[in-house]
């Protein structure tokens, strides 16, 4: 039951992009097409879950016992950077077209505030290891969901035509704002 609440909260109510403002840069950059959004979502899912697991273990079994918690930021970001490198290498071998499509956005997962944010939030919310994993997966799903929604809308907008000054980021942000408003309606579910 607990896990269901964690999932619903992460995907709909406290959506990592639309409510917590994490992961905006790739959100605005990658959401132009549905296909790249799915690819990005998958990569983020993998990195986010692994990163949360590794940082959780490091935090609880190394940093806290040694009273080195102030090194949290450095350790966490190095873990994430390494994981992204590994994902890049794997993706190059396994699916070169996806690797090409994601382009610069793949290494940018390192600077995706959502990944580091979720790792830190797992510690802050005092989740245990299993809850942390569920939390990470759920947030990655929430991220992908927001990405897909925005990509779908933007693909339509391309056909309709937007005022010149609003093209690109501004209209993406305004649409995101409306999506965020819509998602606020989920808040009363539980």
């Amino acid at each position, binding site marked *: 039951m607990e896990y269901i609440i964690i999932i619903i909260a992460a995907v709909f109510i406290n959506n990592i992009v*639309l*409510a*917590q*403002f*994490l*992961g*905006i*840069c790739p959100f*605005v*950059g990658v959401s132009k097409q549905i296909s790249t959004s799915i690819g990005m979502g998958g990569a983020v899912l993998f990195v986010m879950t692994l990163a949360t697991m590794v940082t959780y273990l490091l935090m609880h079994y190394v940093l806290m016992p040694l009273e080195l918690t*102030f*090194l*949290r*930021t*450095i350790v*966490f*970001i*190095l873990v994430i*950077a390494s994981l992204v490198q590994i994902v890049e290498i794997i993706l190059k071998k396994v699916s070169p077209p996806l690797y090409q499509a994601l382009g610069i956005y793949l290494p*940018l997962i*390192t*600077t*995706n*505030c959502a990944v*580091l*944010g979720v790792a*830190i*939030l797992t510690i*802050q919310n005092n989740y245990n290891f299993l809850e942390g994993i569920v939390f990470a997966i759920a947030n990655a799903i929430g991220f992908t969901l927001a990405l897909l929604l925005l990509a779908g809308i933007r693909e339509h907008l391309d056909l309709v035509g937007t005022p010149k*000054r*609003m093209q690109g*980021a*501004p*209209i*993406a*942000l*305004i649409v*995101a*704002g*409306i999506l*965020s*408003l819509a998602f*606020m309606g989920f808040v009363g579910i539980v």
Partner: protein
Amino acid sequence: MNQLQNFTKGLIKENPVFILLLGLCPALGVTTSAFNGFGMGIATTFVLLMSNLIISLLKNFIPSSVRIPSFIVVIASFVTAVDLIMAAYAPDLHSQLGLFIPLIVVNCVVLARAEAFASKKEVFSSIIDGLGIGVGFTFALTLLGAVREILGSGSLLGIQFLPQGTDGIIVFILAPGAFIGLGYLIVLMNLFKKN
């Protein structure tokens, strides 16, 4: 380019938030008031300045294949330093900015500047560049924070100007307002840019 241009480009022409679209996460996350936006801008500027300085100094000592991890360690160290200093000497701002302080380390602005500029140019230019971009970032965040605070809370810098008991347009201090506010500000800046 001369140093004056180096500095001012960060303000409007290459404003990190409005034009380069970097550092959007904190721009949306902490701008519930002008003061919070300003505080975050200052903290980020400090990190930007120090990391540009150190990375520019060390650029010939870092083998290029490990430059990204090295930059990350340098940047993360200064972020941790800012985190500790704020917790000790500016606790209210520290708890307002919360999660976004450690997130400065993944602020695309800082890493992008290190990679694109500081690792290639001399120390003085790098410092000026860091300052310029930092000031531009602070300007953007303070502006967005001010807009959201005025419309959403009916106050500016904590000074209420709406009569007691009336709410502002609350949506502006909530999530949707951040997106919409930033979106329209970028449109305004685009107008500015063309002129």
